[in-house]
């Protein structure tokens, strides 16, 4: 076990690997939903240390990766306006739109600013009353409550020059869409821990029952991921399909009631297109009518955008767990972090970036044999 000494508790890690090996009798495919989990798995070689029978499939849980091209293009158009200060998290800077990205737009003179928190963007709006300040509101259920609170504050404080370009997405409909796909190979899910910190676990039993699939709420540390895998395999071997919480120190069954209340006040559920995957019903949020005045799409009337996706990039298949990053012909050749064709190579949580960053530095014994 060549990476074991990198685990925070190598003895416990070995015990978990041994337990998983002991209970595994057949091949199983598990999807880790969260991109942070993917990076932890690849960085620590967890996928290579598991029994051959267990295949980890990387899921769509990277908010940067799934933000649709159309919204990126709208962001670029709004950011290019001279009256706008466009605020974003740093990991959106190099996500390719149709030919440009926020980094290039900034280099051409636009006022693009990186903020740590959406509240920082609101402060910029207060300090610049003669400019329009737009915050790029992307992300899953973890990021939506902070953005919801910021819009709530903008309304409460009466800050008319602030707006949100919204592209929030929800995990449970994505799990549903993956299970409904005729090509689906997933037999159990490691659900994203921090999404459940906000939303709790109440949305999952129905999904687990309907698709007869175990769902284990899982954290990000290597030992958390091993525990999630161990519980998933035990259920699969026993023919069970229940929801378990393997991250109880951060996830309560009810999640964060205050955050959920704010979400349902500020946002309403909508259909949302996912980059590389397509439209998933009820998989997103948009501002509710009460807050529609803060919607940047309405404020700037960004319509008539024609998008142009790379014809080579297979990130959509990577996001659905249909292929591994290195099975794309462009991986590491035309597509690198310097010249990314898709968001999965740009994002700090993208599966392609994880493979490029960690896997190319090694001799990939198990991977090499599984590719052909």
């Amino acid at each position, binding site marked *: 076990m060549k990476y074991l000494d990198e685990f*925070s508790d190598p003895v416990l890690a070995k015990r978990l690997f041994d337990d998983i090996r002991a209970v595994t009798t057949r091949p199983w495919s598990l999807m880790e939903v*969260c*991109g*942070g989990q993917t*990076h*932890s798995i690849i*960085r620590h070689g967890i996928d290579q240390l598991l029994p051959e029978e267990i295949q980890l499939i990387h899921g769509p*849980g*990277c*908010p*940067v990766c799934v933000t649709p091209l159309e919204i990126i293009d709208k962001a670029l158009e709004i950011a290019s306006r001279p009256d706008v200060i466009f605020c974003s*998290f*740093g*990991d959106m*800077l*190099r996500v390719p739109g149709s030919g440009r990205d926020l*980094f290039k737009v*900034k*280099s051409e*003179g636009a006022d693009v600013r*990186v903020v*740590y*928190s*959406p*509240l*920082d963007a609101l402060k910029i709006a207060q300090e610049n009353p003669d400019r329009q300040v737009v915050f790029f509101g992307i*992300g*899953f259920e*973890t*990021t939506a*409550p*902070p953005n919801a*609170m910021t819009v709530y*504050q903008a309304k409460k*404080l009466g800050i008319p020059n602030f707006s949100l370009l919204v592209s929030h997405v929800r995990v449970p409909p994505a799990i549903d869409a993956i299970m409904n796909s005729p090509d689906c190979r997933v037999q159990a899910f490691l659900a994203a821990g*921090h999404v459940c*910190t*906000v939303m709790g676990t109440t949305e999952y039993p129905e999904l687990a029952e309907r698709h007869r699939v175990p769902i284990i709420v899982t954290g*990000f*540390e*290597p030992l958390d991921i091993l525990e999630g895998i161990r519980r998933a395999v035990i259920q699969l071997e026993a023919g069970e399909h229940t929801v378990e919480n393997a991250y109880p*120190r*951060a*996830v*309560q069954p009810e999640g*964060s009631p*205050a*955050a959920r209340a*704010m979400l349902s006040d500020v946002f309403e559920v909508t259909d949302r297109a996912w980059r590389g995957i397509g439209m998933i019903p009820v998989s997103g949020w948009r501002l509710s009518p009460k807050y529609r005045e803060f919607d940047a799409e309405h404020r700037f009337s960004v319509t008539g955008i024609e998008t142009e996706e790379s014809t080579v990039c297979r990130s959509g298949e990577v996001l659905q767990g249909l292929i591994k990053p290195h099975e794309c012909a462009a991986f590491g050749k035309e597509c690198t*972090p*310097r010249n990314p064709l898709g968001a999965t190579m*740009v994002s*700090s*949580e993208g599966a392609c970036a994880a493979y490029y960053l960690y896997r190319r530095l090694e001799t990939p014994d198990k991977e090499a044999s599984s590719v052909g």
Partner: protein
Amino acid sequence: MCLAVPGRVLEIEERDATRMAKVDFGGVVKDVCLEYVPDMKVGDYAIVHVGFALQRLDEESAKQTLELFENLGVLEEEFGDAWGKAARDAGAERPAGTGLPPLKGAEKEARS
């Protein structure tokens, strides 16, 4: 940005009728909104995402996760120089107006 990072509450104050805190993330201190975990006290640890505390966390878990995230480079991505990283990744010049503010006389001497 999807990962939430654990931090320790250093001080708490009301600002614009909102409960805010200074939170220490392994040496980096940021303003954090406590409205979603209103009973946080000074010295407590919380999982913080983009400037909002989302859930309380025990100290040992918080420290372990901070160490992991530091090794994964998450802290650098969350709190570091995003324009510098983007410029390096792109193999391009840093765009104008994204550098550190010019040093004042005394700071310049102290750093040289």
